[in-house]
């Protein structure tokens, strides 16, 4: 379309000739985007932390007391084959005694010396397995699957901790989504109103354009281009601002020996979200704010 280039140029010109409003819009959008970026980064980091915690979250599985080592090892191999088991480690009776002493403290060491072991140290203990899971949401099913295996007696699970982790993760994710949603709507409303203010000063212009036979589409396009442009500029500034802020915060946190997700690994998510957000708010904002004026046929514009 021949006039499209002209309309795009007009959109660019609008950004400049309404620079005060442009700066205000960009300021608002950047503020909102940085908050959204913070929400994303927070959620990504919480997720990573929970993942680490989850990986460390092992359950102890014990065989029945009378199980022989061969039976225990057979049960162990069955545990390993369960699909949701991430890793499993066989704990011999000797290791069991060691960790028991370790857990109870050295002063009890002598106590265990008196226990009649027969020829095998710790033979009064069951065999154990240290097992970690891939997906904690399937925790209960996996535990009962393990319990069904022959010669398995009981599982020492940390059900509450696991449930807590899953809960926190869900909470962080849904809170993040709600916050992002609310901020998005806020941005939309503010942008629509900002453009509306410029529209107010430009309604004479719109009425003139209508009087010389411009279609609504023709009048609207530069405004939409203007909105999209403001969105894109905001997205770029927001990415830089988010990067800067995150680097500062990450340095502080890392110095307290807590590891954080590197920004570069989420760079594209952040840029993507900002761009989509900027373009959509700019587009919808300008369409909303100009709509009212396009429906009028001119005379309603007049204040003279």
């Amino acid at each position, binding site marked *: 379309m021949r006039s499209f280039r*002209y309309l795009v140029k007009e959109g660019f010109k609008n950004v400049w000739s309404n620079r005060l409003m442009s700066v205000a819009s960009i300021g608002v959008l950047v503020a909102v985007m940085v908050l959204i970026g913070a929400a994303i980064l927070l959620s990504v980091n919480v997720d990573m932390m929970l993942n680490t915690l989850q990986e460390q979250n092992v359950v102890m599985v014990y065989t029945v007391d009378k199980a022989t080592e061969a039976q225990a090892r057979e049960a162990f191999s069955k545990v390993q084959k369960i699909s949701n088991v991430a890793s499993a480690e066989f704990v011999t009776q000797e290791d069991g005694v060691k960790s028991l002493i370790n857990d109870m403290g050295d002063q009890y060491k002598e106590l265990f010396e008196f226990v009649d072991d027969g020829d095998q140290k710790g033979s009064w203990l069951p065999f154990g397995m240290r097992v970690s899971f891939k997906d904690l949401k399937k925790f209960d099913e996996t535990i009962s699957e393990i319990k069904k295996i022959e010669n398995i007696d009981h599982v020492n699970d940390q059900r509450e901790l696991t449930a807590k982790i899953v809960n926190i993760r869900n909470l962080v994710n849904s809170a993040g989504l709600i916050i992002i949603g609310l901020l998005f709507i806020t941005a939309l409303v503010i942008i629509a109103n900002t453009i509306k203010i410029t529209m107010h000063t430009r309604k004479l212009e719109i009425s003139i354009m209508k*009087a010389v*036979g411009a279609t609504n589409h023709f009048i609207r396009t530069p405004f939409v281009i203007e909105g999209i442009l403001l969105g894109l500029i905001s997205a770029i500034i927001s990415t830089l601002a988010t990067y800067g802020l995150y680097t500062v915060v990450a340095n502080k946190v890392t110095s307290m020996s807590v590891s954080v997700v590197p920004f570069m690994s989420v760079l594209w998510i952040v840029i993507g979200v900002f761009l989509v957000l900027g373009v959509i708010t700019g587009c919808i904002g300008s369409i909303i704010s100009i709509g009212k004026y396009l429906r009028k*046929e001119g*005379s309603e514009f007049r204040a003279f």
Partner: protein
Amino acid sequence: MHKGKQGIIIRKEAFELEMGQPVIEFDGVTKTYQKGMHALNDVNIKIHKGEFVFVVGRSGAGKSTFIKLIMREETPNTGDIYVNGYNLSKMRRRDIPYFRRSMGIVFQDFRLIPTMNVFDNVAFSLRVVGASNREIKRRVAQVLSMVDLGSRARAYPRELSGGEQQRVGLARALINNPALIIADEPTGNVDPNMSYEIVELLTEINRRGTTVVMVTHEHQLVRDFNRRVIMLENGRVVADNLEGAME
């Protein structure tokens, strides 16, 4: 749709005016803005192709309402209006822009876009119809020299006198070679000497076949340019001096 003389897209109906059919026809038109007072009251008028018509009357007589109804900025409460072969009562909203391209409109307050220079203000009407850049340059230069503003193309409206601004308005109205020009008190904000020049320009355009409807309350102008005069009073046509049109 088809391409007009200037390679400009105008709706086909605009060209289907049959010989002798009026360019503007008001048929029992009444317009009331609010309850009670009629801005226009049972107006019946026919204006034919090639006519030059003055519309006169006191302030509040309904002259601007007459113009707004012609350009379909307002719609009548009762009666029918036909302009350039369009039946305005039956026109869909999305046809309005195409209808407006078939006429040139001149306003008392010029209505130039302040952020555009003279060239762009005049060119806007051509851009709206999708003319090429070459076409735009050629036509705008031609029309600007016609209103004697060839040297002010880069000036902004605020840098021009009232008379110059109105000539820009006139150039914009002419740029699409419309069959009809309507002007609502085009000399209202212009000094007397310039007023004469503007009406001269309108008569010159009219000589080339364009129908002109001009609202004014300057009696001296009307007397000097001996044309058809429609007089409105309280929304009614109280005099229609057709003889003027015969010359």
